[in-house]
Structures are given as C-alpha cells and as structure tokens.
C-alpha cells in the first residue's frame, strides 16, 4: 500500500491552483472526462449574525489516512484514471474554496458517480473540524448535514 499523501493546504485553495491542476492533465491523453467538485465557504446568516470565514482544523494523521482509504476504495470501485483531493486548513473566507476534488476517466459516466461517492465519503469519514466565525466576533462549530 502506498503511503498516505498530505491532502491539506494552508488557507484557501486558489483558482490558479485549480487551473494549474487542470493544465497538468493535458499530457494524460487517455482521459476523456474530468469532473470537479469545489466546496465554497457559505456566508450563512444565523440570528442576525453572518459567517465571515471558517477556520479548519483536522486530526491530520488520521484524516490523511482516511483520505487514503477513500482513494483506494474508489479506485477499486470505479475505473478512473486519476483522482486528487485537496482540503484547506486554517482560515478560509466566505466565497473562497476549501475543498477541491478532481477525478478523471476515459468516459463521462464513471466520473459523475465517482465524484459524488468521494465527496460524500470525505464529509462522513475525514476528521476535519470547522469553526465558523461570525461578523460579531462570536463563533459556532460547523457540523456536516
């Protein structure tokens, strides 16, 4: 088994980073379909307070193992060519990207199914925590639905 890779990036995932990832796949010409999920921080309003950013933290070793397990499982279940997962740590402001999942295969059907499976697994299995900061200096802890 390969060693788990580090999935975490400090701060927001930039549009440039995402564009660069797409560009890197242009040499992989067996690929006919990419599918991308981008998680964006929402400015939720709760009782007159609005979320301005989320500070992400994680149990990094366990999370990287969880991401690795998800990766191995998805490769077994779906005939994909490659997949990449990046998740933010630290502060990500409302409107910025905190999760980038990128999956590629020769044909489209597989990537639609695989991407959904990966994102749902991340939400359920990765020990990542989010502190939602409000515009009045208070905070609450995010819980995945």
């Amino acid at each position, binding site marked *: 088994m390969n060693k788990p890779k580090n999935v975490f990036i400090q701060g927001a995932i930039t549009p440039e980073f995402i564009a660069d990832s797409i560009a890197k796949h242009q040499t992989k010409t067996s690929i006919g379909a990419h599918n991308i999920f981008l*998680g964006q921080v929402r400015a939720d309003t709760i009782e007159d307070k609005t979320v301005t950013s989320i500070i*992400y*933290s*994680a*149990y990094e*070793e*366990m*999370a990287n*193992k969880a991401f690795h397990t998800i990766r191995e499982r998805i490769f077994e279940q779906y005939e994909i060519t490659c997949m990449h997962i990046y*998740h933010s740590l630290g502060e990500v402001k409302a409107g910025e990207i*905190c*999760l980038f999942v990128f999956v590629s295969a020769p044909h489209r059907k597989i990537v639609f199914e695989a991407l959904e499976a990966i*994102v749902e697994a*991340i*939400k*359920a*299995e*990765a*020990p*990542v*925590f*989010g*502190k939602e900061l409000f515009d009045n200096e208070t905070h609450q*802890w*995010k*819980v*995945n639905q």
Partner: protein
Amino acid sequence: MNHKLHIKYFGQIAEITGKSFEIISSDSISIEELVKNLTESYPSLRDQEFKVAVDHEIKSKSSQISHDAEIALLPPFAGG
C-alpha cells in the same frame, strides 16, 4: 500494567478541555470507562457529541485499551 495514553482533543472538545492534548497513565481500560473518567475532569463533555479513535481508528465504547495508545476525542466532522 500501566499504559501511557496520549489523549488528543479537537474542535469544540479542545475548547472544553482548554488543551489540545494530555498524557495519562492507566491500567487496561474500556473506552466507556475512559470517557467517564474524562467527563469527571471536564463535566461539560457530557453535553458534547464525539467519537473516540484509538491509534487513528474509531472504536466502540466497549473496546478495551490495553497498550500505549494515541486516543482522540473527535467532535462531529465538518470537512468540505
């Protein structure tokens, strides 16, 4: 026999304990007993939902910890 348990706290759990980790020594102990002991030290844990991982794997309440281990108290996940 005594074991060293490295206990890590995350998210809202770390807010309650006021620390991100501590080391305790313990005889062989079940997760349920360990949580009971920790709740005596940090009563607000009672109101929190969390899972317990032993050496990076989530374990059930009845699991026994009978070696030096890394324990983590994990509040609800919020990735993505």
